[in-house]
């Protein structure tokens, strides 16, 4: 295209102009590409003046490779096809389609449970939908956002984006280094136009116009009999920054995913944790993560505070959760801190989040001889909003039965912080706060199965190799204990006491994800670029001054924007008024209708007057000058 532009420009300069679209078409006949015609419709009457007002790729993608092929011929080599493919991929139309696909593709992930979000829900779903689940599995619908097809869409989009940005950036640099194109032959064809006659000499007018435009921060220079000026390059820059920022964000996100680590740790009040792999309850990391990257620190939970709405319809709704902790880094000094739901603690780039909380009743287990074999807080897992909790109390070593034989004890525990009272008919908690704690235990002995080598859930009692203690009726021995109460096991097998103390526990997520800073920086750049790209208008102004047939100077001013906006004529009017003040209208006895040189009399005088009468500033319809 550039070679055509050059010709157009020179033609314009000499003022002979009115670039015929046929002419341009002819010169380029051999190389004309499909779609260019459409383009020419736009630029036909403006010549180069309407060109390069943006760096958006032209929609010159042929529908068949033949049309866009290097030689335009029917036979295409591999290279031709590749080029065709690349052109397709980097066209606006395909970018549009990919964007559309991306949003369509994101939908199923919001409606079908996702492994990455909640794998328990996925299990439930699979259990419920036996025929559907395998199909979904095949289509990777449980892992939409890491699926092959979703990745394919966004990778194509980003390849397209890069393929689009690189040439656009070069083009933009070129535009910055070149100067605004000369005035088109007929300024009257531009979306905003004004003219008057003045006694000042054409050179004076041009000089004044150049100064005025430069003062308004236009890039202005004189081409032939007209000053050409342009402003608003920041729009293009903003647009490029926005698209580049998208890439930065994507890369930052990807790097973060690869290098991140994330682990969970449950701590009962009074206990601690040091940041090494073995101490985590569970740990996940990106594929490029290595354990040396764990920040060295230790932390302990001093106290957990939870408060709840006491009255009203929302009784029981949590109001505050706060974990008071003490932590120390490499230097060994202790620091105090509080972690709340929205306020993670940041230690050396690692964030410690408060995730959940629960109760840990303190129990004491004695054997038949009265020797304490277990004493401690047992964290139990909440199963509802009111913190009804379940768990297991396991006594692994040290216990001997009444015959002195080694054995293991296990208790299935159920705990409610606020019991509804005997009459309430059920054991579930009535309120999440500690108001009327009751611990129900069911007692077993035998092998806990801990040594079998299989991973075992600490919160569950595996009773397969255990024998329940029996009550008088032959049922599993169970008892609800109030604080301070004790359940005696039959036949002098020992006892379990619910001490008058219930501790709380809090679980934390400890995560480290590099690249967050980049993601945030990218996001900010994206917004700034977007704002520049959407709010700044790129526009050109031309001021032509030449001597009319009667020797009086005719000044013509016209403006062209990338998208037509009401601001454009306003700005032109303002510029014209300023220039007009310095170069006032010449005194002429009659209202002549001068035909500026080079303008053909297409409309004739009649239509001129018409328009003058009917149209003062007519508001124009949508983005006309845009291609």
């Amino acid at each position: 295209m550039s070679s055509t532009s050059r010709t157009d420009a020179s033609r314009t300069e000499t003022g002979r102009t009115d670039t015929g679209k046929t002419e341009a078409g002819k010169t380029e006949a051999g190389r004309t590409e499909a779609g260019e015609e459409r383009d020419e419709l736009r630029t036909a009457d403006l010549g180069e003046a309407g060109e390069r007002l943006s760096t958006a790729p032209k929609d010159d993608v042929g529908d068949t490779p033949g049309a866009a092929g290097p030689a335009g011929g029917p036979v295409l080599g591999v290279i031709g096809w590749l080029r065709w493919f690349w052109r397709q991929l980097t066209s606006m139309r395909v970018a549009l389609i990919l964007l559309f696909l991306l949003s369509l593709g994101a939908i199923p992930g919001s409606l079908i449970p996702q492994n990455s979000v909640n794998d328990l829900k996925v299990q439930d779903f699979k259990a419920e939908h036996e025929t559907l689940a395998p199909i979904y599995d095949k289509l990777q619908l449980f892992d939409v956002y890491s699926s092959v097809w979703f990745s394919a869409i966004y990778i194509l989009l980003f390849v397209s984006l890069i393929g689009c940005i690189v040439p656009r950036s070069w083009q933009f640099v070129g535009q910055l280094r070149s100067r605004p194109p000369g005035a088109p032959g007929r300024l009257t064809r531009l979306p905003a136009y004004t003219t008057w006659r003045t006694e000042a000499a054409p050179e004076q007018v041009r000089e004044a116009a150049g100064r005025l435009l430069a003062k308004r921060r236009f890039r202005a220079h004189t081409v032939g009999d007209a000053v050409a000026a342009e402003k608003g390059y920041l729009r293009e820059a903003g647009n490029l920054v926005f698209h580049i920022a998208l890439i930065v964000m994507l890369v930052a996100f990807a790097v973060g995913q690869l290098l991140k680590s994330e682990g969970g740790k449950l701590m009962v009040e009074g206990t601690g944790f040091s940041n090494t792999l073995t101490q985590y309850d569970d740990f996940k990391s990106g594929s490029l993560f290595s354990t040396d990257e764990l920040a060295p620190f230790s932390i302990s939970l001093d106290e957990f505070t939870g408060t709840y709405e006491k009255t009203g319809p929302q009784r029981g709704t949590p109001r505050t959760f706060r974990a008071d902790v003490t932590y120390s880094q490499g230097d060994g000094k202790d620091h105090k801190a509080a972690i709340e739901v929205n306020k993670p603690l940041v230690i050396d780039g690692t964030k410690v989040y408060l995730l959940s909380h629960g109760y840990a009743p303190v129990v004491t287990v004695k054997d038949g001889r009265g020797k304490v074999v277990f004493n401690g807080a047992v964290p139990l897992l909440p199963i509802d909003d009111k913190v009804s909790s379940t768990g297991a109390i396991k006594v692994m070593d040290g216990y001997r039965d009444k015959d002195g034989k080694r054995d293991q004890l296990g208790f299935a525990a159920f705990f409610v912080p606020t019991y509804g009272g005997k009459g309430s008919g059920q054991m579930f908690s009535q309120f999440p706060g500690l108001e009327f704690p009751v611990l129900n235990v069911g007692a077993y002995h035998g092998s806990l199965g801990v040594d079998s080598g299989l991973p075992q859930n600490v919160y569950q009692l595996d009773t397969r190799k255990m024998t329940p203690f029996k009550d008088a009726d032959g049922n599993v021995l169970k008892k609800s204990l109030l604080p301070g109460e004790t359940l005696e096991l039959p036949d002098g097998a020992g006892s379990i006491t619910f001490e008058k103390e219930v501790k709380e526990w809090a679980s934390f997520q400890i995560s480290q994800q590099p690249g967050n800073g980049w993601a945030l920086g990218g996001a900010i750049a994206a917004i700034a670029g977007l704002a520049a790209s959407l709010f700044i208008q790129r526009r050109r102004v031309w001021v032509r001054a030449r001597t009319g047939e009667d020797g009086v100077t005719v000044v013509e001013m016209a403006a062209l924007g990338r998208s037509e906006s009401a601001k454009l004529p306003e700005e032109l009017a303002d510029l014209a008024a300023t220039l007009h003040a310095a170069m006032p209208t010449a005194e002429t006895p009659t209202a002549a209708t001068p035909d500026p040189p080079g303008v053909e009399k297409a409309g004739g005088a009649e239509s001129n007057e018409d328009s003058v009468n009917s149209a003062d500033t007519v508001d124009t319809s949508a983005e006309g000058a845009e291609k």
Partner: protein
Amino acid sequence: MTLAAATNENLASISNVLIYSAMAVYTLAFLAHIAEWVFGSRSKVGRTAAALTTDAGPAAKTAAGPVVQTRAGGAAVLERPKVITRSAAGQRDVPDGPGAHGGTEKGDLYGRIAVSLTVLAFLIQAAGVLARALSVQRAPWGNMYEFSITFSTVAVGAYLGFLAAKKNIRWMGLLLVATVLADLGIATTWLYTESDQLVPALHSYWLWIHVSTAIFCGAVFYLGAVGTLLYLFRDSYEAKLARGGSPGRFASSVLERLPSAASLDKFAYRVNAAVFPLWTFTIIAGAIWAGDAWGRYWGWDAKEVWSFITWVAYAAYLHARATAGWKGRKAACLALVAFACWLFNYYGVNLFVNSLHGYAGV
């Protein structure tokens, strides 16, 4: 403590009374708008048809050639040179309709009454939202009821803002007031939640930032969507006229009074484009908040996914406008799809999809 609780309950019931009063006044405004349209229909405007049929269409206009403005009469003339604007080739050159009142005085009077009532209702509603905020002593965006009443307040506020800035937007009045009534009706009947404080996960100054911008974006996107919808109707009406067809009487009467398709399109585009960066910001603010609250800034939670979908849909719309062959009706359809995504994100995700953001309170 109990004293404070009592004041709060008082404020909450004051808020309820205010919201109901606002609904009553909106109903009056609705009726006044109806009157405006009815009286307006009695005028014979017919401008659009005239412009499209007598003028032989856009071709003639383009061929009209150079329009040169000259200044007549002596040195005394020092006024500004007049700027002549010209629309691009291939565009219908149609004047805007006169508005709902159709140029009739009576219609105009009722229209003005409707706008005044809307202002009044807006003030009452805003007071209702404020009372609610005071009663809960936090931003009034903790559940869907509060979100809904704030949402329509902001939408009406934006509309009145446009009117105050002398933008031609009164044509939207009837539709806007009707939807505001529907929104408030849904809010008070189905979404009502007793005034109360927030769960800890919502305690954050990001609530102020993220949710307020989200509500604002939604409200203004809504105005854009109304513009887009009317554009589609008006555009097919103009196209039909240009083809020499004759639209039905009702359609003519209503559509003729709207602004031209080009103006509606431009309005919708400007609104959407202006809000898009703010919507981008909203999502990023949400991500930052999620980073603080849940330990990850992006986790593909349903609400996040739908914000993303909405964002991509609007981006597609903006792209479409820059792509030949996609401007106009196709792009408009994309804009409507994008707004539908926004709506689904608000109602659909809160009510039907299990999400971490599930604080609908219903």
